[in-house]
């Protein structure tokens, strides 16, 4: 058994291509750009070694701190929304839908398919208030909830919520599909025998399927967390960070510093902060979902 599973030749054949490709085209550029964080200015234009200056600035930069705080809130809301709603829907589809499962699944996935820039533009129109009401305000208007009509993405109090709602909408289908595929890939006989033993659906979910799905949960959380920390496209296309800096995410700040303000090194330093944030949060997830024994 062990001999087969630790076959050196097979191991090399299986892993080397991935490791090589990944190292050359992903890891090297990443390390290379992090190395840039010891410089000021733009590479190839006015690049100068500046030691730890960029890192020291990280600690006193209130704009960065504000956008990190914003991001934490955003991550909390969107991750929980995406993963749990996705899981719940997958379970419901698996149990309640007999015919048309595939239809439901395909439809749920449609928002995931769309380019995020197009989704941003679409939601701008959904949230619009002027020159004419967008979809949301128009619907609020006919159901008599006029007092709720507002400039959803133009108002400081609602802009972050509007962004979260859009990203949950766009992401849920993916998690639904991930959980759904995993559920039907689960060995059927375990569930069958539990059913024969008279276990209720809820019990089957809780004590048989949930534990088996643990790695999927871990994966879903890691995937959603890293995606949310790095949110860029959707925020740029929906609100451009506005109103003011209400929805200004760390990646947008990184991008502006690196490319617009001409401080590539400082941008790289912010990228490092984002990396650290991802590592921290994903290790917490890893610890929570650590397999017992």
């Amino acid at each position, binding site marked *: 058994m062990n001999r087969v599973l630790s076959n050196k030749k097979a191991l090399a*054949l299986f892993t080397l291509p991935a490791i090589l490709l990944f190292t050359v085209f992903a890891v090297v550029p990443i390390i290379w750009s992090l190395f840039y964080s010891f410089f000021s200015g733009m590479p190839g234009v006015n690049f100068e070694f500046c030691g730890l200056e960029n890192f020291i600035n990280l600690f006193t930069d209130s704009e960065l701190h504000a956008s990190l705080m914003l991001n934490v809130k955003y991550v909390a809301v969107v991750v929980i929304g995406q993963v749990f709603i996705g899981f719940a829907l997958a379970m419901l589809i698996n149990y*309640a839908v007999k015919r048309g499962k595939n239809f439901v699944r395909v439809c749920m996935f*449609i928002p995931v398919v769309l*380019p995020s820039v*197009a989704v941003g533009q679409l939601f701008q129109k959904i949230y619009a208030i002027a020159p004419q009401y967008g979809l949301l305000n128009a619907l609020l208007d006919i159901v008599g909830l006029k007092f709720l009509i507002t400039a959803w993405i133009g108002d400081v109090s609602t802009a972050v919520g509007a962004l979260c709602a859009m990203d949950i909408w766009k992401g849920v289908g993916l998690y639904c599909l*991930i959980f759904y595929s995993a559920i039907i*890939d689960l060995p059927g006989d375990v569930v069958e025998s539990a059913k024969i033993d008279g276990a209720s659906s809820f019990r089957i979910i809780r004590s048989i399927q949930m534990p088996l799905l643990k*790695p999927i949960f871990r994966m879903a959380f890691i995937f959603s967390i890293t995606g949310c920390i790095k949110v860029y496209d959707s925020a740029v296309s929906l609100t451009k960070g506005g109103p003011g800096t209400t929805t200004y995410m760390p990646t947008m700040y990184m991008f502006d510093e690196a490319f617009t303000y001409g401080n590539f090194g400082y941008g790289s330093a912010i990228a490092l902060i984002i990396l650290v944030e991802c590592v921290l949060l994903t290790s917490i997830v890893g610890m929570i979902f650590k397999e017992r024994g």
Partner: protein
Amino acid sequence: MTAKKGKGKIISKIIIGIALVLSIYPVIWLILSSFKTTQEFSLLPSYSLPQGLYLDNYISAWTSGNMGVYFKNSIICTLGSLILIVVVALPASFALTKMKWKGKNFFNKYFMMGLMIPIQVALIPIFQIYKNLNLLNSHIGLILVYTVFGLSMTILMFTGFFESFPNEMLEAAVIDGCSIYGCLTKMVVPLMGNSIVTVLTLQFLTSWNDLLFSQTLISETAKKTVQTGLVMFSGAHGQVDWGPMFASMAIGVLPTLGLYLFLSKFMIQGMTAGAVKG
């Protein structure tokens, strides 16, 4: 007992129904709106149906040619990266979950790095590497970068799915004299059909919808992909009316949607095949 169960099912169905409406209605609204005239936009509420098929929006949005070429390029790059990523990521993920070796833990984390760094920051080094390897303006270049930056996600998902693959089944097969290659190709791949298709769908989407890399690494018009082509015709100045605006959004969305719906037919076939074997 059965009555209670029936009630639960009905409630579940209602919830799914609501979720369905929520997820597709905005897209349907987008497509319907793209057929509206300017007058309809200003006179009627935005949820109303279009009065007729007003195709001028599409004509005014679809002004630049070359879309055929862009589609061809997108298809080549996307399919190329799909094939490459399966060949590369599937065995690697198998080794990272089911095989026994020292570097397993390290490399699991190593591959995750791609998920955690905002890729925008790596653009300058990637551009320089590509310039030196003569990969700028080439399909291979895009295929490589799509594969590599999809690798983290793909491996994470594959390993997630493989972990829930029961070890006992694998052990039984090995005891029956199955080789490591056989385990992978004859057991894991067929049984994990759904999960594999899911991962591939995602990879397909990220490659197809990519704008950042294609815009940075491709400057020749003949090598551009659909998403960059769309930027070229929606232009720096926004459209004046909602109609053409919606039409250009629809042009951005519909091909992706169509392709997805087309591919999902195969996905479903793959799934039912998997279920039968399971």
